[in-house]
């Protein structure tokens, strides 16, 4: 069973190591147990996260405009974009797979960008809006991150599998690269965001109350 001490590590000037959970004085720059870099809060968390989020937004444009996959059938090349692929699947009647692709390749990346922008915005505004829900939101964002890679893996598998001489061939399109970039950059963005900042705003309020 756990007992609540109702005290944060930062209020005791203790930093916690991201790699090994070690608690140590915030004056140290490296963890005494595993040697990783140590900070009270991740350094420049908001700036880094924002920079990565904007990068991801830029990469997301070519990822949707250019074909992710080019099908060559009997010498006739036909490119399909991410959304085009979903529409094609619906026409073929594979609704469940169309939903899976739509969820992982369209909704997850957009939702991830939106929720990260929202979290950064509320932290910057020192919002006191239900920190627990925002923590859950951050955890979900962090968890779903890598699932967007599904579409890139599908392209890799189809490209490797489908080449039957000149009859039928599938080639990767440039969007595969930019989309993989979106996924990786947003994963790093989620990692560089410090969820504890959400709660630091609540601390400020509490300390204001006690001093006034």
């Amino acid at each position, binding site marked *: 069973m756990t007992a609540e001490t109702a005290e944060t590590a930062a209020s005791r000037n203790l930093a916690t190591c991201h790699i090994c959970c070690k*608690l140590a004085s915030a004056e140290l720059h490296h963890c005494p147990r595993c040697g990783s870099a140590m900070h009270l809060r991740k350094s420049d968390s908001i700036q880094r996260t924002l920079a990565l989020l904007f990068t991801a937004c830029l990469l997301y444009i070519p990822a949707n405009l250019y074909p992710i996959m080019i099908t060559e059938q009997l010498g006739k090349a036909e490119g399909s974009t991410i959304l085009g692929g979903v529409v094609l699947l619906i026409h073929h009647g594979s609704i469940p797979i169309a939903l899976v692709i739509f969820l992982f390749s369209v909704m997850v990346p957009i939702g991830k960008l939106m929720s990260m922008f929202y979290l950064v915005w509320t932290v910057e505004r020192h919002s006191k809006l239900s920190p627990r829900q925002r*923590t859950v939101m951050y955890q979900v964002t962090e968890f779903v991150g890598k699932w967007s890679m599904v579409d890139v893996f599908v392209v890799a598998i189809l490209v*490797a599998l489908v080449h039957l001489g000149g009859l039928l061939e599938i080639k990767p399109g440039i969007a595969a690269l930019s989309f993989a970039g979106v996924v990786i950059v947003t994963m790093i963005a989620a990692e560089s965001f410090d969820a504890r900042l959400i709660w630091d705003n609540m601390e400020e309020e509490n300390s204001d109350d006690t001093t006034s």
Partner: protein
Amino acid sequence: MNKEMACHGCDLLVDVGGLKDGESASCPRCGHFLTKYRSDSYSRVLAYTMAGLILLFMANSYSFLSFSSSGLESVITLRQTPGAVWEYGMPEVAIMVAAFIIVIPTVVLVLLLALCLPLERGIYRPWLAPIAKAIFMSQNWAMVEVFIIGVIVSLVKIAAMATVVLGISFWAYAGFSICFTLAVATLDRYQCWERIEELGAAQA
């Protein structure tokens, strides 16, 4: 001995000292998972790791998928998946795919074996800390389960065009992805580092 840990989600200090076998702790303020204590956790990790390594070896020895249409057939192995993307002029994507589905998971499993064998027997080794650090830094970048979903989606996409057969390697890889996920989930970050520190202190 100090058994306090700070929640990664909200920085609250929580005493996690008195956990009994099989009990886990979450943060009372933000609900973030903290740690789970199991007296036999290292044997469990070892079991999953060894099963995973055997399955991974099988996944690399047989054909992964085969595809045939109008009398023409193409068979691929697991390694050819990133290889083909490389040949079509996208080495960056090929490197990423290879890293996420083969290289990082394999390295993590081998490191888990090197970490948990001494930990399970209670022996201190100077390489325990660097190995644990490498595992915890790279485990988020293994995407074995995502790849399995990718295979299933690809199958449905081309099922209309041709006949696709799943090879032994696919089933081995599916088993490997389960073992890998269980092994990584069973190794508790906080407990593992406490144990390394304990063993190191006993040695000194």
